């Protein structure tokens, strides 16, 4: 295949991945709608029988009527379809990302500009979600993740799309693979972590206040303790990766390419801010009065700085940042 064929294959694969993700989102919407429509009594019965996320196998509640059984089947089927479609979409996206590597001569890692970072980042989020799904029972996350992926792919296509081409000379270094690869992985972990922290805040709020209209929906989610633990573990994976990407690999490359390992470039400053905030999150989890809600809010702020660094810096400081490879 020629580079042009790879390029158009990549564009098509990404487009189809987007479409499949839309369908996956629909599957999860049906799952949620059916869950919401479930009468409250059955909900709580199922809730006691199947503590979500606790590792107990799903078992039909003995108190459920045939109608409820049918509804449970419908919820289960819709959810499974959503996950299956997410797998298909992710395979397509992976094919698109790989093809993008071969769309320039010589082949290269598929992260030379914002469009490619975004694709790879989305792939990272999808891969982390799918990898943890069976062990950590993450299906409650399905609607969020697929919606997120659809939005990100759309934005990437509409605002960031760039034709494939060779790397600019500043990126001719194997540190590109190490530095950007680690940063993308860390971003994926932080993204899923932020999602968990956000749901934790919702769920913890409801648990504190008692029933609300959202109650039925929130029963889909694991307990706030389980969410807090999961969120911590994701951040605990993301933080060392980020430390490596931003504070070790980045400075080594900067020293090599720009003659100074720390330049207070806007992107570096914001990477540092993100690091400090996630460090604050880890400390907050160990501090009386900050555990739980405050810590989760700090984690969300951390993710906001990460997003701003990724998107905002290139748009606002494009000219002055040494990282403006968009």
């Amino acid at each position, binding site marked *: 295949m020629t580079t042009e064929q790879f390029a158009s294959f990549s564009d098509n694969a990404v487009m189809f991945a987007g479409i499949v993700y839309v369908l996956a989102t629909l599957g999860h919407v049906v799952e949620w709608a059916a869950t919401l429509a479930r009468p409250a009594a059955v909900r709580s019965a199922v809730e006691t029988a199947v503590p979500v996320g606790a590792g107990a196998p799903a078992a039909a509640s003995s108190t459920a009527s045939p109608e409820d059984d049918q509804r449970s089947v419908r919820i289960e089927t819709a959810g499974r379809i959503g996950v299956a479609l997410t797998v298909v979409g992710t395979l397509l996206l992976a094919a698109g990302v790989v093809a993008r590597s071969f769309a320039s001569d010589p082949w290269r890692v598929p992260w030379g500009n914002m469009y490619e970072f975004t694709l790879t980042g989305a792939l990272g989020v999808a891969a982390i979600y799918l990898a943890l799904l069976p062990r950590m029972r993450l299906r409650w996350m399905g609607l969020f993740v697929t919606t997120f992926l659809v939005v990100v792919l759309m934005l990437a296509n509409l605002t960031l799309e760039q034709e494939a081409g060779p790397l600019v*000379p500043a990126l001719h270094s194997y540190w590109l693979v190490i530095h950007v690869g680690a940063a993308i992985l860390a971003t994926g972990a932080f993204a899923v972590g932020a999602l968990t922290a956000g749901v934790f805040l919702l769920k913890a709020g409801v648990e504190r206040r008692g029933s609300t209209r959202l109650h039925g929906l929130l029963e889909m989610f694991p307990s706030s303790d389980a969410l807090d*633990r999961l969120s911590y573990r994701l951040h605990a994976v993301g933080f060392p990766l980020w430390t490596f990407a931003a504070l070790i690999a980045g400075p080594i490359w900067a020293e090599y390419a720009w003659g100074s390992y720390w330049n207070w470039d806007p992107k570096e400053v914001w990477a540092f801010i993100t690091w400090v905030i996630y460090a604050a999150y*880890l400390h907050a989890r160990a*501090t009386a009065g900050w555990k739980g809600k405050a810590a989760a809010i700090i984690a969300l702020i951390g993710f906001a700085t990460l997003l701003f660094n990724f998107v905002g810096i290139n748009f606002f400081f494009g000219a*002055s940042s040494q990282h403006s490879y968009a």
Partner: protein
Amino acid sequence: MAVTEKAPAAAGPPQPPALSPRELLRWAWRQLTSMRTALLLLLLLALASIPGSVVPQSDVAPVDVARWKQDHPDLATVYEKLDLFSVYDSPWFSAIYLLLMVSLVGCILPRTAVYLRALRTAPPPAPRNLGRLPAYTSVESGDAPDVVLERARTALRGRRYRVSTGDGSLSGERGYLREAGNLLFHVSVIVVLVGFAYGQLFGYKGGAIVLVGNGFSNSLTQYDEFAPGTFFDPDDLPPVSFTVDDFEAEFLTEGPQQGQPVDFGADLTYVETPGDEPQDYHLEVNQPLLLDGMSVFLVGHGYAPEFTVWDGTGDVAYRGAVPFLPQDSSFASFGVVKVTGAQPEQLGFDGMFYPTYSFTMERGPFSVFPDALNPAVSLLAYHGDLGIDAGEPQSVYDLDTDAMERFEKDDGGMFRADMAPGKKVTLPDDLGAIRLDGWKRWVKLQVSHTPGKGIALTGVVLALVGLMGSLFVRRRRAWVRVVERDGRTYVEVAGLDRTTAGEGLDDEVRELAAAISGRSATATLPEDPAPEDDRKADR
């Protein structure tokens, strides 16, 4: 100031009673070193870093700072008072991280003491009722109690528990490295800062624009910008010199990314110490020239059109190449020509160099390609006083036209000198003429030396190692009790996770029980082998 789930003795802020000065001091120290303060300082540090990414920094982009000050003369004085142009060495930024450091040290020292004591302390004895612990199982064993206990010891040690012996029971604890990692991380942060500070104080960084064909010798006067560390002595600059022999840039000539650079590099001939044999080096973006005590980096390139200027008396008043600064990716470049020696009046020009000149009515003149395929300049011309004699330092890239008058055409329109190489344009009123002779390329080189790199790198790598230990090592306690009942031996095993994110505790307890009882992994669980009151009676 530590990344664990359970901060020891994390007491809230104590209510200050009527304080003696000593107590007040102790109270202040407690406050400063509390986790809460560390947390707030961390958030404050993040907040304080923001302005430096918004306002140009004089250490990073001195040209931008000058431009910013020109554009906002009123704000500039306020900003200067607040150190907003040098946020990262400002007193208020330093205050935050110094407080953070003090808080860090104040946390590390007592925690190290606690940790060292914990290392010497045996794991706590088995609680009376093991069944109340989060993970618990009991199995029967066919062997004598001593044999079983001995096997339990081996099993616990095999799983890297530290074991202490009680009365018919064993206590095990593992995961001591978690706190060690935690302490290592925090000590390493200090090491990194020491290395960083050392580099800032004793290093230097300079930038110079060198025309292709010209030389550079490493002394202060040769730099366009130079940022020495506080304790750096310019006499210590290594006596390196080099010539930029050639510069090649290659751009994509087709496809959607047309004009994107593919490769660029400069050929240098350098002499490391005077008298050495000259050596060649091909300098590229990711291939710096690394010498003893300094490194040379290629950080940019551009065009320098060559001009000849005649003044009103008909003499050649200027001849040479003038670096123009690229304004966009097509290398349309802005620059200034100052002819101080022109008679009867000084002459000045400013305008653009277009490497591949093109013109449309909508856009006016522009460059379609970054390579010099069809070079041209378009300059405005001024006559009068350049203001250089006034003594105020001027940028070579700015023309001070306060005391100058712009040349105009007879019909009152702006006079423009639009020239392709070789073309000569005569200025109105017989005040002179200018010719574009050709063009050269220039390279922007950064020369720097950062001592303490090794310290900082070692620190940050150790910090990562420590961090992983403090996040991923799990602290766990396990207890084994062997009970004889009716001539049979029963083993109770219980476990407790001391980190919240622990998992697999149940599995571990089951596996331990299976290993200790000497039965196959699928151990039989008998009825409660020792009801609580029986056990009490035994004691």
